[in-house]
């Protein structure tokens, strides 16, 4: 009876596109080692050092008046910078994605410029404009307006470094989506504003949120640019990152890490929301691409 009574599994070689186990394990080990020493351990260390002297000391460091002031200032700056860039981002994306005009690519590159500028230089440029020796310096002095070494300067620097975030999230998405939906709305009698609010906004909400998220994370964490324009006046012109620096330079490590852990926590929340939104965004882009 020609029946196969082969009950043992066949001894076959490895599938052709897979690597030998020792290669796999070795590479995984190497990758984990690399990520652990450069990413994971620093993160863990922040929290470990923050809690080194116990929960009590941790909380004390955070509710200390200068720390609270730093928190308030950071939030204030973010609350101004983000909406400013939001308006800009939406306007720029609308102009670029829905219309044809010469020089579009150049405009996009210019909007991306702040990304390639060193934070210190970003601070410097406003110092040159509004500082005592700057162009508008004397005029500001006359009118008793303080921009550099004060909150307005910090806000400006933050706006600069977070400038492109929202625009560059919206532009590709809105370009892919085209203007069909808007044209349909217009043909039905909707006004421009109504079209924007009822048709465009819902289509871009996840990309918008994503851009706002990145913008927020960067706005709250910016150090170099703000450092130049801040007066480093404790309790007045120190954002959270600057406060960390001050504490650290005073060798008050526990407090420095305590405040730093707050920022690290913010970073982790950002990462979590980012992953969730990325998943959302991918399905949006997929849907946009499938439209005829």
């Amino acid at each position, binding site marked *: 009876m020609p029946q196969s009574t082969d009950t043992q599994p066949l001894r076959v070689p490895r599938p052709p596109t897979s690597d030998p186990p020792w290669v796999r394990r070795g590479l995984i080990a190497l990758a984990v080692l690399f990520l652990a020493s450069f990413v994971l351990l620093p993160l863990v260390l*922040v929290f470990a050092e923050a809690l080194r002297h116990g929960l009590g000391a941790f909380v004390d460091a955070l509710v200390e008046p200068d720390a609270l002031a730093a928190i308030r200032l950071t939030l204030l700056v973010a609350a101004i910078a983000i909406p400013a860039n939001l308006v800009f981002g939406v306007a720029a994306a609308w102009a670029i994605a829905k219309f044809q005009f010469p020089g579009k690519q150049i405009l996009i590159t*210019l909007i991306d410029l702040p990304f390639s500028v060193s934070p210190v230089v970003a601070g410097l440029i406003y110092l040159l404009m509004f500082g005592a020796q700057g162009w508008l310096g004397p005029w500001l002095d006359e009118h008793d307006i303080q921009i550099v070494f004060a909150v307005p300067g910090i806000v400006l620097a933050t706006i*600069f470094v977070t400038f492109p975030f929202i625009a560059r999230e919206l532009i590709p998405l809105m370009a892919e989506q085209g203007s069909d939906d808007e044209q349909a709305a217009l043909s039905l009698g909707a006004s421009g504003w109504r079209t924007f609010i009822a048709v465009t906004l819902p289509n871009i909400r996840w990309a918008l949120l994503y851009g706002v998220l990145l913008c927020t994370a960067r706005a709250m964490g910016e150090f170099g640019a703000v450092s*130049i324009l801040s007066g480093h006046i404790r309790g007045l012109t120190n954002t959270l990152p600057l406060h960390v620096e001050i504490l650290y330079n005073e060798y008050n490590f526990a407090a420095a890490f305590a405040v730093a852990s707050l920022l*690290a926590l913010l*970073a982790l929340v950002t990462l979590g929301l980012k992953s969730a939104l990325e998943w959302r965004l991918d399905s949006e882009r997929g849907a946009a691409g499938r439209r005829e």
Partner: protein
Amino acid sequence: MDTRSVSTPRWRRRRVLPGFGLTLGYTLTWLALIVLIPLAGVFLKAAELGWSGLWAVWTDARVLAALKLSFGTALAAAAFNAVMGTLVAWVLVRYRFPGRRLLDAMIDLPFALPTAVAGIALTALYSGNGWIGRWLEPYGIKVAYAPLGIVVALVFIGLPFVVRSVQPVLSEASVELEEAAASLGASRWQTALRVNLPTLAPSILTGFALAFARAVGEYGSVIFIAGNIPYVSEIAPLLIVIKLEEFDYPAATAVAAAMLLLAFALLLAINLLQAWSMRHRAAVH
């Protein structure tokens, strides 16, 4: 009455969607006020020095040392990231292991974490009695307060760029190419070297360039771990800050101008790279 429509000049052509003038105008105005004019200010101020003045600053020993240090450490860090980033991308895309998702999410931490936090954390980690530093100390490897520390910080900063550049290309890559190579007699190693790597080369290069551009101007994560000793471990952005504190605005501006020129050159290179790789990858399906 002539009811024929008059041909409208191009700039007056009516657009279907409203708001073009408003949004473009606002965009250009805001862009100019926040970005273009201030940046131009740097070059104008630098120009006040004249070419000889600029040259004098740029070739000053301390400035040169700082620029070379910023450039050199950024290059080293970006190169290290190019290798390790490709490896990490390969591992994340090709292999399954517990904790892979978590690791994948962690890659973006350098994007999200404030640079000052990264700075003090890395310093604590790699200093003589830090968790990692204490293992390296006996071998005489000094990371914190030395140029090596700068490289470590810049590796952290640039880590996501290569990984996130390579990952999509790797996951899109058709497994058929590897099967074809295997059917022609190539071992796994030969396949990786001759088929996978060339396919990934443009994205690795792009990631490298992005990491490099970011690292050159980095400040917050570096100044804690570097020794900040002039001529030895002082980066260019720090030099700018020091010059500003000394009220030597011309010198600060000159160094800033140099850094801006370098940044723009890199930006151009990256754009060209991306355009070239788009063309080269014309669908071969």
